[in-house]
């Protein structure tokens, strides 16, 4: 059995770019830092597979920095299931639960894909765009498979590129946003040359793959698994036979932990000040939970949070200008890939919205908020704790992300024998 009570000056939750940067910056002060991640890997979703198969220099640089820094303890395979009290997290590891005590907490929990319901989206073979990509990086067989990539955002191109490189037959890429705003966005990238180069390289590798804008899925068909998908551009519909549909409508922040800690949100995102500190003292937040800005924004915010949390404000301030620049990119991203209202009518009355409890759109569409839906239909009360349908209903019905109740993930009852009191607990 591993240690039941762990204590650190700084605890960073999330091992993606923001978390890696935060841990490195905080560790420079000599503080004892823990870097917690719920997977066996570091690098988050964006840098998945970079430990096993290095290909991105930027990822290698940060992963190496974390490994070489003596005062960073890596707690992988560790899921935070509850905030027991200020500065104390309850975590689940393979061999049991533990309390993690932190003087300061940096939340870098990243984002997940927005997965929207439409008829047939529950068929095996319909996956998130990033979802199929990360699985492919860990051995999911895509070589020779017919894949359509759809949804929204720059991730779609990266996914199509990754899948094609892995040997998949990418039939088409369908972006819901119109071409006009995407062209304008691409032009605005001239102030970020690294992004332009990246984009051009991807487009070159995807030469010959149809890439259309203003297109979205209508329905997926198949018996036990996916066999075809029908698309529309609002005027015509057409179908493709395929083995996989990789479909994600952009990213939504993972705000369960900040909400559980009582951090204030601004819209869908965690509200932070110039030091990346949330509304709760000693709790910082960096990366996607503060706004979907991508890896570069996350790295800068992570460093600022790490420096600020260890009192190194001079170092933090030196990065403010860089952060503003990436925040402009972030705003342009949100504007360009705004979801069109037609996507709200993808879900029919028979479409399952809550996949854990099989609650259909017809059963919830007249309900005014998530709490009522939970009480009346069990929507959002299954194993994923509303992580999938919460974001979907936020888009479809505007219910908003509300309070979070512990545990934030399915946890073992015995975990809660730990009360947050430390080793002096009476049990």
């Amino acid at each position, binding site marked *: 059995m591993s240690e039941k009570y762990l204590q650190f000056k700084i605890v960073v939750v999330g091992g993606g770019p923001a978390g890696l940067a935060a841990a490195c910056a905080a560790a420079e002060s000599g503080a004892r830092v823990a870097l917690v991640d*719920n*997977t*066996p890997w570091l690098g988050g*979703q964006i840098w998945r597979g970079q430990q*096993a198969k290095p290909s991105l220099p930027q990822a290698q640089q940060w992963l190496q920095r974390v490994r070489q820094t003596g005062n960073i303890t890596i707690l992988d395979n560790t899921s935070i299931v509850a905030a027991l009290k200020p500065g104390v997290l309850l975590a689940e590891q393979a061999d049991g639960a533990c309390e993690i005590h932190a003087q300061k907490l940096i939340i870098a929990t990243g984002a*997940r*894909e927005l*997965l929207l319901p439409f008829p047939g989206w*529950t*068929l*095996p*073979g*319909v*996956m*998130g765009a*990033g*979802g*199929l*990509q*990360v*699985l492919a990086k*860990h*051995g*999911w*067989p895509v070589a020779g498979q017919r894949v359509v990539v759809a949804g929204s955002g720059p991730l779609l191109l990266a996914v199509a590129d990754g899948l094609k490189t892995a040997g998949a037959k990418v039939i088409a890429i369908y972006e819901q946003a119109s071409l006009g705003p995407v062209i304008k966005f691409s032009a605005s990238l001239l102030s970020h040359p690294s992004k332009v180069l990246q984009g051009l390289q991807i487009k070159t590798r995807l030469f010959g793959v149809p890439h259309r804008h203003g297109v979205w899925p209508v329905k997926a068909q198949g018996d*036990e*698994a996916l066999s075809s998908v029908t698309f529309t551009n609002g005027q015509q519909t057409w179908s493709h036979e395929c083995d996989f549909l990789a479909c994600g409508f952009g990213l939504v922040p*993972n705000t369960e932990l900040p909400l559980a800690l009582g951090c204030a949100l601004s819209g869908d995102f965690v509200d932070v000040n110039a030091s990346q500190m949330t509304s709760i003292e000693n709790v910082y937040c960096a990366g996607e939970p503060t706004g979907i800005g991508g890896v570069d924004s996350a790295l800068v915010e992570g460093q600022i949070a790490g420096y600020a949390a260890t009192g190194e404000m001079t170092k933090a301030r030196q990065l403010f200008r860089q952060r503003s620049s990436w925040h402009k990119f972030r705003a342009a991203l949100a504007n360009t890939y705004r979801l069109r209202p037609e996507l709200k009518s993808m879900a029919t009355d028979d479409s*399952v919205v809550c*996949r*854990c*409890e*099989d609650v259909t759109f017809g059963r919830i569409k007249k309900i005014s908020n998530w709490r009522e839906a939970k009480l009346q239909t069990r929507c959002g009360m*299954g*194993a*994923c704790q509303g*992580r*999938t349908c919460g974001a979907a209903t936020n888009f479809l019905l505007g219910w908003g992300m509300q309070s979070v109740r512990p545990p934030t993930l*399915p946890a073992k009852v015995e975990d809660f024998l730990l009360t947050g009191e430390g080793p002096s607990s009476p049990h």
Partner: protein
Amino acid sequence: MTDPVQLRINGREVSVPAGTVVAAAIALAGQMKFRESVTKQPRGPLCGMGICMECRVTINGQPQCRSCQTLCEPGMEVVTA
């Protein structure tokens, strides 16, 4: 390159490259249905990131394990619905 990993999926011996997650091993074994929903619909992995819980299977007797977040280990016993 490290040696392949041998595990059993629904009683069948499967050999996968090291670093393969259980979800991928199930797909390599030719299976797309991982579990049945509460209304008996077939389901398979969706998010790939440990969020949606659609890829839950039983691993070494422990039910409700997220197969997309679990690396294959030698001798593992995986059971799908």
